């Protein structure tokens, strides 16, 4: 009975959506805000990747909120799973030889690849979040590959908080130097070169490390009691 009832409701919503969507043409937005970013993106922020300039400069406050949410997730996880009494480690099938050697061999490369991505955030597609995620998948491989070598939880927490504080400090520096919070006060440099887009690379390094540490921390908290 519940299935039919929910199907009816969803059909009504689909009808509403259809009428609403038919007014919004697909494929020709031409929005004023979007064109402004594309034209003035490079000379105002110095970053070649316009999406990164939006994420960090134009709408930097969103990303600050974003970083807080990730910090919040790891805190919440710690708070909820910290009170678990049974700390016994479950039996994990010992990893096969191929996995351990691959993990020992691949782990540094994955970290380097992740670092490459968030270092070139303003040049090539990708940035802090994607680099951090790749680093976290590196740590995931480490847990699967060699479970006995564990990283102390507090080091993750330290990196997280430092990353967040670095972001805020850069923002406050912008506030003191340029009068606006998160103002791009460093020189823009030559476009399309590594040290070019003012504060954007600095922030993306902080975010990359922070997201990597946080995601790894989340996975570590979840795995720890298994």
């Amino acid at each position, binding site marked *: 009975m519940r299935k039919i009832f929910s199907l009816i409701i969803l059909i009504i919503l*689909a009808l509403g959506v259809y009428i609403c969507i038919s007014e919004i043409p697909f494929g020709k937005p031409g929005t004023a805000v979007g064109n402004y970013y594309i034209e003035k993106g490079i000379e105002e922020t110095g970053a070649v990747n316009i*999406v990164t300039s939006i994420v960090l400069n134009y709408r930097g406050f969103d990303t600050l909120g974003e970083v807080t949410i990730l910090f919040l997730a790891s805190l919440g996880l710690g708070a909820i799973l910290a009170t678990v009494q049974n700390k016994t480690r479950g039996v994990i099938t010992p990893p096969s030889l191929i996995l351990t050697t691959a993990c020992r061999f691949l782990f540094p490369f994955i970290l380097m690849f992740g670092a490459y991505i968030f270092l070139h955030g303003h040049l090539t597609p990708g940035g802090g979040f994607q680099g951090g995620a790749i680093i976290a998948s590196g740590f995931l491989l480490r847990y699967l590959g060699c479970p006995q070598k564990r990283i102390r939880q507090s080091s993750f927490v330290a990196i997280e908080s430092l990353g967040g504080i670095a972001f805020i400090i850069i923002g406050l520096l912008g506030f003191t130097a340029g009068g606006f919070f998160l103002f791009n006060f460093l020189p823009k440099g030559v476009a399309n070169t590594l040290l070019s887009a003012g504060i954007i690379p600095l922030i993306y390094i902080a975010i990359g490390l922070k997201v990597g540490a946080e995601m790894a921390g989340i996975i570590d908290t979840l795995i720890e009691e298994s």
Partner: protein
Amino acid sequence: MDFLNNYIFYIGAFGLIFIGLYILLTRKNLIKLIIGLSIVDTGVNLLIICMGYLKNGTAPIFSRKGLNPETMVDPTPQALVLTSIVIGVAVLAMALSLAIRLYQHYGTLDMRKIKEQKW
């Protein structure tokens, strides 16, 4: 043919949203509900990106010289989706930790049996 060109992405996005809602409405297991939530989230991200797409536009990155700004896709939705994906992960991690604790307390994840907090 042009119907497909115009509406295929909308069908994909809203299809995902409605299937996710269907899971939320009918399924009992908490983990299945969480999977439903992540599907709704993916659907919404797809919808946001569709809003900014320009017919045969190019990616908003000036990697080479001579890229014509007019044909570039609108970059703002991509910035929003970056944030929204990470929000989805954060909520998902929180939900799964609660599911694990719930399983330790109740021994089951069937939401029709977990009804102590009522009236």
